[in-house]
Each structure stands twice: as structure tokens, then as C-alpha cells.
């Protein structure tokens, strides 16, 4: 395992800047996920770490070496691609052993390491097959195996599960997590899928518009998103947002939007002004506490274990998640309370968390 350090890196395609002044430190053995919508520069960053793209400014360090000018093969990395990128004319074993063969390792060593990696990924019976004779999930396992065989300090994953169907994606996700626990190798993983990010990562770097918006543990990102973008991007179903203003009332600060008046914790006393309020569907509670507000159910979306309920509070729409045992119908009247510790307030305009 090696640490990875990206220092003040600029990358530009022609005159179009893709990354600017980007800093990132990945600890040895850490699982870091780069999460963001397409075009945010996350794959570019990964390619730059791999050495497949030249940086126009700054340095890349892997382990304790400055590898900014090093070829990919000399960086001590292995990479897994979205489209698997298996060599079609080679068997699984040849695919996995190709890197070692080029490096001029003796055949017995190549064979042994291919076998070890294959055993780890349950690929032993497939070693003689060509990629065309494999299913999508098997292909990606072979691609992961190819990375394993190289025995390097850092694994790079470029959306490895995006081409698979939902069930396989879950299976392989678990497998990757198990692999990380087993090997302890540093892993950097690019995805646009927040579930993958939340389940796999030690830390997540949420990216947008060429910059890292927040770099924190999954829990921190989920519970205390640094800004409006992170709050909206992470979490499914998405957070409820309402633009409005904070006003100081008799019994403390409150969020106001039209008829809606939502009491807020005391920490927002001095905030004031135009804000955006956010609360996750799973944090709204049905109940009749002192702060509960009356609501009318509009629509119900059963999702198996739980149900997503769309309701209006003072004419403003909110979605909330309830257990599947809670039976509600459109038109039902309920009381909702909004626990203060789970209410997020973002400054309008800048989107910064207050």
C-alpha cells in the first residue's frame, strides 16, 4: 500500500481547463471514492494519477516518489476500466498475466500469481476462456484479477460497475469491499453512483465543476453536507429543498416560506436573510410532538421495505420515508415534525452550509 498525493495539479485539454489547483491526499490503505456527475473531472483526475494523462502544472506523488513524469507501468498502480478493456484475443489467464509477461518475469511466477488471483476471485475454472465467452460480471472480475496480479500499491477503479445490471453491481461491490479488507491496498474509485460511494469509501471526495466540494467520511457527507450541491447529490430519494428566509420569532428562529413556518434550533439565531432549507425524507417524522405541523398526503410510492410519501405542509411539498407497515392513502391528514438536528440550512446564492 502506498499513499497518493496530488499537489496543485492543473489539467487542460487544449485551452479548456479541466482541473485547477487541485490538492488531494490519500492515506496508505485508504479507500477513497471520487464522486460526482459526469464532466466534473473525476475521471480526468484518476487518469492523471494513473499517468495516462499529462498534468499541465503540479505534481503527483505515489508512495514517496514523485511520479509526475513516470510512465503508468512505473507508478506502482493497476487500473480497472468501465468497459473491462480485456484483450479479446487472449484467454483469461493470458489477460491476467500480460503485464507480468511484458515485465519479463519467469513463466512459473506468472502462472503462480495468475492462479492466486484467480482463486481469490473464483475465476479458476474460467482461466482458459476468451473474454467473449464470459458474462459481464465475469469480465469485470477478470479485469479486477488483472489488477490483482500486478501486485501494486494502488488500485485505480474507473466506474468499474457502471456497465453491469443492478444485481451484479451489488454483488461485485461487496466483492471489491471484501478485497480491500483482505489486501489493505490503497484504492481510488471513481463513480457517479452515490450508493457505491457511501458503501465502499473510507472517505468520499464529492466533485463538481473541476473542484472538490467536500472531502469527508461517508457519514459526515451524509449528515453534514458542506453545501447545497453535496446535499442534493448524495442521498436517495433526494433531500427536500425549499427556498425561503430565516426570521427571528418570539420562541427562537424560524424558517418562513409563504404560509410555512418551521421552527429552527437556536444555532440559526444570527443567520438571517435568504436561505435554502433542506431535510432528508428519512428524517421527517410522523407524530404529534409540540412542533408537529399538519400535513395532507398527496401521493404514495411503495418501495418494498419502505414507502415514500408525498405530502404538503402549508401548501409546500415534502417527501418522507416511512416503514411499509404504515398505511397511508392520498387525502389522509397527518402531523409531521422536523427534528432540528437533521435540518440543513444553506445560504442562498453561495449554497454554503450554515
Amino acid at each position, binding site marked *: 500500500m502506498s499513499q497518493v498525493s496530488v499537489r496543485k495539479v492543473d489539467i487542460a485539454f487544449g485551452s479548456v481547463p479541466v482541473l485547477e489547483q487541485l490538492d488531494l491526499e490519500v492515506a496508505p490503505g485508504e479507500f477513497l471514492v471520487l464522486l460526482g456527475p459526469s464532466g466534473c473531472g473525476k475521471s480526468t483526475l484518476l487518469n492523471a494519477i494513473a499517468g*495516462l494523462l499529462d498534468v499541465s502544472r503540479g505534481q503527483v506523488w505515489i508512495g514517496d516518489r514523485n511520479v509526475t513524469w513516470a510512465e503508468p507501468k512505473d507508478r506502482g498502480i493497476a487500473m480497472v476500466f468501465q468497459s473491462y*478493456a480485456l484483450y479479446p484475443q487472449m484467454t483469461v489467464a493470458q489477460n491476467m498475466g500480460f503485464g507480468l509477461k511484458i515485465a519479463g518475469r519467469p513463466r512459473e511466477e506468472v502462472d503462480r500469481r495468475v492462479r492466486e488471483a484467480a482463486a481469490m476471485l473464483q475465476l479458476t475454472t474460467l482461466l482458459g476462456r476468451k473474454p467473449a465467452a464470459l458474462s459481464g460480471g465475469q469480465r469485470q472480475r477478470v479485469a479486477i484479477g488483472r489488477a490483482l496480479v500486478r501486485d501494486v500499491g494502488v488500485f485505480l477503479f474507473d466506474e468499474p460497475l457502471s456497465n453491469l445490471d443492478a444485481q451484479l453491481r451489488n454483488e461485485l461491490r461487496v466483492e471489491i469491499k471484501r478485497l480491500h479488507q483482505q489486501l489493505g491496498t490503497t484504492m481510488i474509485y471513481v463513480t457517479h453512483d452515490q450508493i457505491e460511494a457511501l458503501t465502499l469509501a473510507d472517505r468520499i471526495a464529492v466533485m463538481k465543476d473541476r473542484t472538490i466540494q467536500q472531502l469527508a467520511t461517508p457519514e459526515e457527507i451524509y449528515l453534514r453536507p458542506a453545501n447545497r450541491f453535496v446535499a442534493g447529490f448524495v442521498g436517495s430519494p433526494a433531500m427536500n429543498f425549499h427556498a425561503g428566509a430565516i426570521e427571528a420569532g418570539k420562541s427562537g428562529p424560524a424558517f418562513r416560506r409563504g404560509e410555512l413556518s418551521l421552527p429552527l434550533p437556536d444555532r440559526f439565531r444570527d443567520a438571517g436573510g435568504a436561505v435554502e432549507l433542506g431535510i432528508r425524507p428519512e428524517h421527517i417524522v410522523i407524530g404529534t410532538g409540540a412542533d408537529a405541523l399538519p400535513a395532507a398526503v398527496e401521493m404514495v410510492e411503495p418501495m418494498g421495505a419502505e414507502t415514500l410519501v408525498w405530502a404538503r405542509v402549508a401548501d409546500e411539498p415534502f417527501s418522507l420515508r416511512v416503514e411499509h407497515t404504515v398505511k397511508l392513502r392520498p387525502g389522509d391528514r397527518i402531523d409531521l415534525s422536523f427534528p432540528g438536528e437533521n435540518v440543513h440550512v444553506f445560504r442562498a446564492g453561495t449554497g454554503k452550509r450554515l
Partner: protein
Amino acid sequence: MSAGAIVPEGPRPRHFGWARLGIYAFLIVAALFFLFPLYVMVLTSLKPMAEIRMGGLLAWPSDPTVEPWIKAWTSACTGLRCEGLRVGFWNSVIITIPSAVLAILLGMINGYALSFWRVPWANWMFAILMFGTFIPYQVLFYPLVRIASTLGLFGNLGGIVFVQVVFALPVMTLLFRNYYASLPEELFKAARVDGAGFWRTWFSIMLPLSGPMLVVACILKVTNTWNDYILGLIFAGRDNLPMTVQLNNMVNSTLGEREYNMEMAATLLTALVPLVIYFVSGRWFVRGIAAGAVKG
């Protein structure tokens, strides 16, 4: 619903309408139009001269003979020499094979370098190369003759191969560049991470994937070189004249009675190589053109 009504079920019935009939009629007429001369040529080449003199262009040969074919191959006069077309045939083979191999190899490497590696000024080089495909090559003959003779590549086998390769390079490069551009770039990246360099990646990864395009390039280049007349006439030199030039000499230098049967046979012999290539490789040719959907 009445008892006899047809209930729509299963595949929709096909209608053989007027439009379809028209299409077939057109195709059949077009096929006949192209097959008719071939029919006459084959028949004439199998008739003795006596029968040809009687006329009856379309008549079936009453006394078929392969004599004209043998004569065309072994003893017909192409100018001053009377050794038949076989000399030209072997000349063409000797010109075609190295030209095709070299042109395809160089075009393939060019295309590979241009599509995967970041060559400085790659786009400009490609643009210049493409410009080359649009220049009518007659314009270049005089300067090229001077260049070739300075290099000692005029009037010999090396000269004609050199010219054949140079003129084929733009198209070959274009073919392979576009083909390689259709392959997933991640394949190339994976090879780079595995430590394969320029030649290794080409030889181990890209070459084995080039099959469909190789077939297309082979067909194009071989038929092109085989059918070439003017380059062979100018650059090959007297001893290496390709089959097409010899055929022309044979047909145009007749003394006395024109031996139609022998000339037909000679023409068919010359056309045989491209014909065989198309028949054998038609399937591959289509497949190569449709290629691009190479999935890992």
C-alpha cells in the same frame, strides 16, 4: 364477425406487390446487362477461328476448344516477344505481393500511431496525407520519374513497388486510422498500464484485432495493383511490365487476322485474379466494411 373472416394471428402475411416486382425486374435486367458481355467473351474464347468467321456471336460453340487459352498463356506475341501472357502474369504477381504487404503494413502502423498515440502535429500530418488522396496522380508523374531515377528506383522492380506503396499510403492510413478509432480507447490504456510500449501494444493487442480491416485492405490493394496500367507502364521498366500492359500490347499489335478467341481468353486470364478475389472474399469484404462493432 362472420365465420370465414381471417383473424390476424402470427406473422403478418407478405404481399408480393408491384413495387417488389419492379425491383426484381430491374435487378434481373441489370444483371443480364453485365453478364451478357461475359457470356460472349467466354463463348468466343472457346470457339476455333473457323467458327468465329461464320458469325453467330451468341451461338453455342459446336466444336469447343481450349486451344486459344493455351496460346494466350504460352505463345501469343506481346510486342516482339512471343511467350504469352504468363510472363506478364508473374510480373504482376511479383509487383503486387511486395506492394500490398508494404503498403498495408505501413498504413496500419501509420493509422495506429495517429489514432492512439499523441503524435505532435498529428492532425496536420493526417490532413496533408488526406490531401494526397485528392490530388490526381497524373500531375505527379513527371516529378516522380525524376525523383525515382535519382534514387535508382526507375525502370526496375524496386521502382514500381516504391510508387505503388507511396500512392496507396493515404488510403491505407485512412482505413486503419478509422478502424482503430472504432476500437475502445480503454484497451489501449489498459495495455499502457500493463507496461506495453508502442510496438508491443501494436503487435500483441492491435494487430490481432485488425483482421477484418486487413482483409478489406488486402482486397483493395491487390485488385488495385493488379488492375493498374499506367504506373506499371511508366515505372516498371521493360522487363517487369505487368499483365495489363502486356495484354494491351498483345491486343494492339496484331498482324493479319485478329484472333478474337485468343484475345478473349487473354482478357479473361488477366481479369481472373481480381474476379477470384471477389468471389472468395465477398463475405469478408462486407464484414470488414461493416466492422467497427468490435466488442471485447
